[in-house]
């Protein structure tokens, strides 16, 4: 778990503001710099929600292309605002994807390719049991899910998570306990490797 105050680091970064200003003027190199600085967390969020690496990679691309196209509408100045905006876009993409999956369940299985053949096992997805984690996360309440994603997947500490969610620290701790208890009850250890 990351315990440093990353939100404050982001907001203090002058390079970030410069990148954002240049990106707004359609400087693709600057936007690529923003991508380099932020994409790991957005990807982690997508992977946790979707449970399939290839799908998370596709949606990651869509998130940043949408962000680039919609940068004129983004009014924020700090990196935490930019991150929040990216997560909002990512959340929308996840919802669209899940809705599309529920309409087309035949596309749901990640191991069947378009031509009907079965592709090789995705070792990371399988080893960590990402699919079942994503399914279990989707059964939590929105607040419970946000707490575990912020704390354990995205690496925000307790104070940062409480700021991000506009809740007090006590509520975040209680939500965290309930969420982990529910997940632990639902999920078996991944791949038998867990101790």
């Amino acid at each position, binding site marked *: *778990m990351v*315990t440093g105050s990353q939100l404050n680091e982001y907001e203090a970064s002058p390079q970030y503001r410069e990148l954002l200003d240049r990106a707004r003027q*359609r*400087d*693709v*190199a600057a*936007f*690529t710099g923003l*991508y380099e600085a932020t*994409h*790991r*967390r957005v*990807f*982690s969020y997508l*992977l*946790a929600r979707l449970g399939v*690496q290839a799908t*998370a*990679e596709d949606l*990651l*691309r869509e998130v*940043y*292309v949408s962000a*680039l*196209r919609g940068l004129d509408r983004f009014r924020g100045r700090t990196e935490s605002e930019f991150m929040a905006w990216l997560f909002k876009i990512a959340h929308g993409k996840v919802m669209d994807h899940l809705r599309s999956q529920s309409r087309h369940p035949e596309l749901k299985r990640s191991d069947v390719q378009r031509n009907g053949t079965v592709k090789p096992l995705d070792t*990371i997805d399988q080893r*960590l*049991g*990402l699919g079942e*984690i994503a399914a279990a996360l989707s059964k939590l309440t929105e607040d419970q899910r946000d707490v*575990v994603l912020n*704390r*354990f*997947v*995205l*690496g925000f500490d*307790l104070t940062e998570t409480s700021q991000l969610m506009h809740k007090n620290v*006590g509520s975040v*701790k*209680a939500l*965290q*306990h*309930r969420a*982990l*208890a529910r*997940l*632990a*009850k639902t*999920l078996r*250890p*991944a791949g038998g490797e*867990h*101790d």
Partner: protein
Amino acid sequence: MTNNADRLEERLSETFSNAPVPASDRDLDPLLAMAKRLHQIGAIGPSAAATQRTRLALLRASVPEVRHSRAWWPKLATAVPLAIILMTVGTVTTFAAPSALPDSPLYGLRNLREGIEIQLAGTPARRAALDIAFAQQRADQLVRLTQANSASPMVVSTLLRDISSRVHAADAAAQEDGPAARAALQRVEGQIDNELTQLHNSGTLSPSATQQLDNTIHDVQSGESTNAPEPTPSAGQ
């Protein structure tokens, strides 16, 4: 609940610093294991290929389509038949050959579709972005095929030839546009240069293919230096 929640928070920080959990808190073990399992997801990043695809997508998306208000009808007269051909050819190639290689009969269709896409691009900057994206796709394919030791001399030669011609076309289009397009192009050319140089250093190609590879690298590097930003005059000069 509050007590348990506080206890869990204390044990979480110990767990992530690998400190042992006291025996009195063993009931929290499943929750701590769950937290560790979730934490592993944060350590996974997108693959290098996915990152490359995202960069290309950003490059393409960065160039806005320009709509010209005057003399639109001659362009429409060209665009409509081309669009029909593009849709027909695109349907075939999308389903049959999204990345056909030169030893496939569909490679010609791939070239045709790319050519039409470039023709329909509204601005020189967009043409440059498409040309360089197509060059990079071929460089990626060449590297993958060579790593898998499955590239025939004809495939290597054709891919290298087409990389050079796409790079030349991209350079010309970017020169027509301006500094922003040149800067974007230079960045991708740098990536292609790195890929091809690594391929050269791997020593996996035959002498004649290596010679052609060197010529292609030279073409790419020429583009890089042509598109490099002009030096800003320093104060006092």
